[in-house]
């Protein structure tokens, strides 16, 4: 029996630009053309000024860990061989936060406030998701 794969995201018409960006290894998040606010997840009006005029703009991909946990018991077979793994909330330099894993390091190295940068995990040929890793030394915060 083959191991179940991680669930691939199912885009909808409003979020398709985000997932298209992912396939190009770009982290795109909405930016309001009226007030420059950024937000995530996508929606068709600006949560700050309620304007409807927005664009998809690349984020720096840098941020810091607001909080995290180390999961020891996975919620399903797709994640069972990943334990222990880190689930974290990252605040991007642009302001919005997102939920992710912290990868390419031991869970013991992870801490609140740690600077991180985006990397990309291809789940299927069609679906790539953002992951975050410790910011390379010398790269600044």
């Amino acid at each position, binding site marked *: 029996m083959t191991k179940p794969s991680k669930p691939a995201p199912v885009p909808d018409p409003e979020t398709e630009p985000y997932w298209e960006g992912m396939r190009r290894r770009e982290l795109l998040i909405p930016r309001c053309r009226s007030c420059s606010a950024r937000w995530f997840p996508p929606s068709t009006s600006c949560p700050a000024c309620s304007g409807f005029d927005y664009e998809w703009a690349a984020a720096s991909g840098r941020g810091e860990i607001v*909080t995290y*946990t180390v999961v020891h*018991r996975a919620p399903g077979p797709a994640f069972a061989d990943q334990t222990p793994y880190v689930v974290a909330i990252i605040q991007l330099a642009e302001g919005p936060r*997102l939920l992710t894993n912290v990868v390419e390091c031991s869970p013991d190295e992870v801490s609140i406030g740690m600077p991180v940068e985006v990397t990309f995990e291809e789940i299927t040929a069609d679906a790539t998701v953002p992951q975050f890793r410790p910011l390379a030394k010398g790269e600044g915060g």
Partner: protein
Amino acid sequence: MEQGNRAAVAGVGWTPVGAYPGRSAYSFMAEAALHAIADAGLTKEQVDGLIVIPSLVQPSIMPAATFIDYVGIRPQRFSAEPGMGGASGCAAIRQAAAMIEGGQATVVLVVAGDAALSGRPAGSVYAGGSQFEAAYGTFAPALYALYAQRHMHEYGTTPEQLAEVSAACRHHASLNPDAQMRDPQTVADVLASPMIAEPLHRLDCCLISDGGCAVVLTSLAQARDSQRPPVLLLGSGECHTHDKIWRAPDYVSSGAVESGRQAFAEAGLAPADIDVAEIYDCFSITPIILLEDLGFCAKGEGGPFVEGGRIRLGGELPINTHGGLLSHGQPGMGGGLFHAVEAIVQVRGDAGPRQVAGAKVALAHGNGGIFASQCTVIVGRDAA
């Protein structure tokens, strides 16, 4: 408000909570509802308003209509189906009172129940949320652990303090014959249970259960005609801040600051006036944050607050005297209504071995999502 318009709780009912294979969600709702209607001294034909908190394992497009057929009632005035997760129970009581006080209904049945333990489809696995979450192996314990870790980081809250919340709930459940888990459990037992998502151990996480409960509200005048003592809704409040956890204002507090402020202001009471508090406890961190938000202690002091027996029977503020979600059980979204039922049972003085002596005013608080939707209700004895 004129006494004639005022709403009151006239009846409560519940089923034992635990593992009851072979029963549907609606069977628990029906049993609890019929108990509550009888407790109020009414007949089901008198119910003209209905609030059904939907089942998770038997979803229906029209849960109230499904319940209507199952139990055989035809409410003539209104029905509703709150979708506020664990806050739904307290919010439904608040809405039922508002409908009665607004003249929109005269007898409102609030009911919740689920076969969350035995009725889950075989082989089902938690799907992991939205398209922006599914790939990361998240589930409820991990999401609440994100709050717990941040609270520990900012305020020095300890695993032992978290574990005391679970141990206190278990102590109370040991006194409740209708609770699911009644064997004694210590702080050391909680800390020795398997780690799920740091810092939450298995025994820091609530149960999954079969069962149900119900509340009947009427006008105060009608409730006074019943053979049971009416219970007043003294104050209530709600606040909604986010859905996705990454949109939360922060990871150490919740909209309970606002829902609690509203409830205490309406009641003209302060936290020191509360004799017993039934506080949503999906995980051990949840009551610690909510006790702070509701003003029982300062922000950051929830950990020390729960120590030393303060939240146990006989302490300054006993919480979750039925055993809470952690040890009484969590029959789906009905778990949140049980907190309100226990608050009512306590102010009636009907709680038996787990009765808080002389309890006159009780607070119940429901929390939906990941600290997303908050509802506070304060109930008290009818002074008349």
